[in-house]
C-alpha cells in the first residue's frame, strides 16, 4: 500500500507530508514533521497530552488519523509563543511553577488556550471541567488552575 499524501496548514504554515493510512495525526506531527511538543501519554484519548486544535477545535491528536488532516488547519504548542515572546499562559505556567516533569504541559497549554479563546473569564469550576481531559500526575492541579486564572486576568488587561 503506497503512502498517502496530505496537504495541511500547521501553525499558519502550509505543510505537506506522507503517512501510512493507520498513522495518527500525533504520529505524523512527532515522527514526520518533527513537532514533538504534543506527547503520547495514553494513546486512548484519556490524558490529553497530545492536545492540538483542528480548525480551532480542541482534539486529541492520538484519536485522529493523519490522513484526516487533509485541508484542515492544525495548531500545536509550537505555534503558541510569538517567536521569543511567550504566550501569557506559558509565562504564568513558568512563574507559578505549574509543572514538574512537564510531559502534560503542552497539552494543558493548548487546552487552556482553547478555553480562553472562547471564554476569557472562566470560573474555577469551568476551568476544572474544561481541563478534566488533561491528566497531570505531578502537580495536583491547583497550580495549573491558578496559572490559567492569572493568564486569563493578564489577557483581559485586569
Amino acid at each position: 500500500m503506497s503512502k498517502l499524501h496530505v496537504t495541511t496548514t500547521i501553525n499558519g504554515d502550509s505543510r505537506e507530508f506522507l503517512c501510512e493510512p493507520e498513522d495518527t495525526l500525533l504520529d505524523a506531527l512527532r515522527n514526520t514533521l518533527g513537532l514533538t511538543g504534543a506527547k503520547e501519554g495514553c494513546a486512548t484519548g484519556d490524558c490529553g497530552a497530545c492536545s492540538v486544535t483542528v480548525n480551532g477545535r480542541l482534539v486529541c491528536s492520538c484519536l485522529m488519523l493523519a490522513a484526516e488532516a487533509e485541508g484542515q488547519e492544525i495548531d500545536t504548542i509550537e505555534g503558541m509563543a510569538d517567536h521569543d515572546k511567550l504566550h501569557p499562559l506559558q509565562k504564568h505556567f513558568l512563574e507559578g511553577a505549574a509543572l514538574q516533569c512537564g510531559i502534560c504541559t503542552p497539552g494543558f497549554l493548548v487546552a487552556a488556550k482553547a478555553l480562553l479563546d472562547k471564554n476569557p473569564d472562566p470560573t474555577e469550576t469551568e476551568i476544572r471541567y474544561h481541563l478534566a481531559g488533561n491528566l497531570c500526575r505531578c502537580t495536583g492541579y491547583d497550580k495549573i488552575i491558578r496559572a490559567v486564572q492569572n493568564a486569563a486576568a493578564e489577557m483581559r488587561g485586569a
Partner: protein
Amino acid sequence: MRFEQPKTVNDAVSLLADADGLTRVLAGGTDVLVQLRLGMVEPDLVVDIKAIPGMRDITEENGGFTIGAAVSGAELGEHAKLVAAYPGVVEGMELVGSTQVQGRATLTGNLCNASPAADSVPAMIAADAIATIAGPDGPREVPVADIAIGPGKTSLKKGEIITSFHLPARPANASDAYLRFIPRTEMDIAVASAAVNLTLKEGKVVAAKIVLGAVAPTAVTVPAAADAIIGTALDDASLDAMAKACEAACNPITDKRGTIEFRTKTAGTLAKRAAKIAFARAGGKS
C-alpha cells in the same frame, strides 16, 4: 488498511458494500481510533464520512432538527435553539468524554458503538429520534431505539451508514432531561442512567417517555414508568410508582462499576430526578 474519504453518500455506501473484509465508518473516531490502536479491530477499509456535504450540519426542518452524522458533541452544545428544545439530548451527548473528545465524538458513533452505557442514546430514544440510513438498497428511516441490538452490535446491514438523525418538532410545554451516576464528577462511564421526555398541559403530564441506560444489554424504554406519571403533576406517590416500574424493567449485570442491586435502585432514583428536571424545564410547577 485502506483509507477513503468519499465526497458523496453513494460513494461511501458503494465502498462499504463492495469491500471484502472488515470495514469501519469513521466520523469522530473517538471509539474507532482507540479500538484500532489497541488492536481490538484491524479493519481492511476505513471510510471517513466527514467530507460528504451535510454530514456536519444541524438544520431546522419541519419544526424539528436534522443533525448530520458527523456533528460533534461540541457543535451540538453550541447550537442554542437545539439546546433550548432538547436540553436532555444535548446534556447526554456532552457527558461523553473530555473537551478533547467532545471536539470530535458524534451521536452516530455513540449509537453505533452500541455500548449499553452510551450516554447519548437514552435521551435520543426518549425524544423519539429517527435515524436516516443510506445503504445499497436505498435510504430508510429507523427509530433510534431499533439501531443497537446488543453490546457492540447494531441492526445496520453491510454497506449501510447512518447519515443523519431527526428530532421531531416540539409541542409547547415539552422538555427532556438526562442523568447518569458515575463514582466521580467527570470522565467516566455510566453505572446507571435515565432519560425522561415530557409534554405538559395545564400543569400535568400528558405524554412521557422514560428510557434507562446501563441496566440491560441495550437502552430500555419503560412504558409502565411513563404510565405512572401521565395525568399527574409528579406527586411523590406517582414518582415512587414510576421508580418501581423502572426497577422492574432493569436487567443489569454486576461488574467492577456496580452491582445488579445498585444499578437497579439507582436507575429508579435517577428517573425520578430526571423527571423533576424535565418537568421544571417544560414549565411545570411542583
